């Protein structure tokens, strides 16, 4: 599983970086920077939570 952000939908709420700091940090304007690598199985529940709780539903979980 990999995480992508739809940058058109994203409004820099920043929730994703709080919910999944292992994989997502915020840039100087508050927009998410996401590790491009596949999310290990052990952390995938965090990725799902971040995607589900994004206020604009801007995070995509792409299955490899």
């Amino acid at each position: 599983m990999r995480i992508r952000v739809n940058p058109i939908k994203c409004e820099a709420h920043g929730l994703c970086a709080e919910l999944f700091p292992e994989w997502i940090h915020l840039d100087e304007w508050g927009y998410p920077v996401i590790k491009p690598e596949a999310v290990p199985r052990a952390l995938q529940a965090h990725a799902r939570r971040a995607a589900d709780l994004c206020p604009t539903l801007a995070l995509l979980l792409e299955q490899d």
Partner: protein
Amino acid sequence: MNETQVATAALPRLLRGVSFRGLAQLDRHLECHGPLPQLDGASVLEVAERAGLRGRGGAGFPAAVKMRAVKASRGHAIVVANGCESEPMSAKDALLLHELPHLVLDGAALAARAVGSDHVIVAYEGQNEDTRISLAHALKQRRAAGVDHVRFELFAAAERFLTGQETSLVSQINGGPPIPSFIPPRPTRRGVRRRPTLIHNVETLAHLALIARHGDGWYRAIGTNEQPGSTLVTVSGAVNEPGVYEIECGTALEQLLAAAGGPSGAIAGLLVGGYFGSWLPAAAAGEIELSNAALARHDASLGCGVIVALPHSCCAVAETVRVAIYLATETAKQCGPCVNGSAALARTLHAIGSGRAEPSAFADLRRLTGAVTGRGACHLPDGLAHFVATALRTFAGEFDDHAANGPCDACSAPALLSIPAPQPLRA
């Protein structure tokens, strides 16, 4: 190979039928290139694949792969001939649509056959009234002669830098503004009127029209193994005969400059690939071949085929600042990192150019070029960051000098790199 094939393997290929006076005539086109062979769709796909035809809009994606993707998608496919180069220093697509519309329309008809479509939309830059007249005339002649089995429609696209970006063009044809959309879905799956949409640059289609006539062996007889055939380039700046040239892929840059009448003076640097392209030192002209494999070793690519030779009378810093501001203002204002980062890049560059920069300005630029790359729905931030990064590398001394001493004498010279007037994003 028989004699005629050998003869037509030489250049020019696409530009053979250029008239430069009056409207393009169908009979002259047929006299020059012969009738379009009645290939079935599968044969068009196969010959394009064997020829190794790549897209000429800038990205260089294999044309056959794109056509196969559209063919494999569910629904009634539609073809868009993309003639909206919107690169201020490029003139090749406008030249094709204006002087050689039948070559483009032949290619579009073939592409339609390849993907099982009967509908082609020819998108041109709406401000070019000459192009519309030429296309309308060409279509009238084709209807009278009954040469096509597809329906052609003209579309006048907006005058913006992002007008020809694929998803932006789809948005416009669907009645929306000239702004890109997020992928997925790719237009090959869902594009114009939610149908699978094949978008090919008009030069790609013109090549297809000749490949269908002469075969993949003829196409591959020139060029490099990875990048066969010929390509159109627009040469401007410090050369005696600026214009659109057709070159064999892999031609030495020095040879192209010589073909363009040779340098008209000392060259300070070279812009290769347009405003999403790379600044290279003038000395590189002697070692560069115009193929993507060779250019990649210089962190460059041919892009849409724009080559600008910057004369010493122009200031590289001032030219770079103006283009960076232009690109930053052409943002579709959709993606946060682009909206914020592109503006910050342009602002910081401008401060350096006018000698009012913070001590951290160069470190800021390095951070910002990294921060915007890959962060937008389209490649505008990536292109801008690359343009700026290659300028800083190629003209490091000039940028340092401006940061310390402010504008130079050449800063007030007339702009070489043209900057279109701002247009509203939403009408």
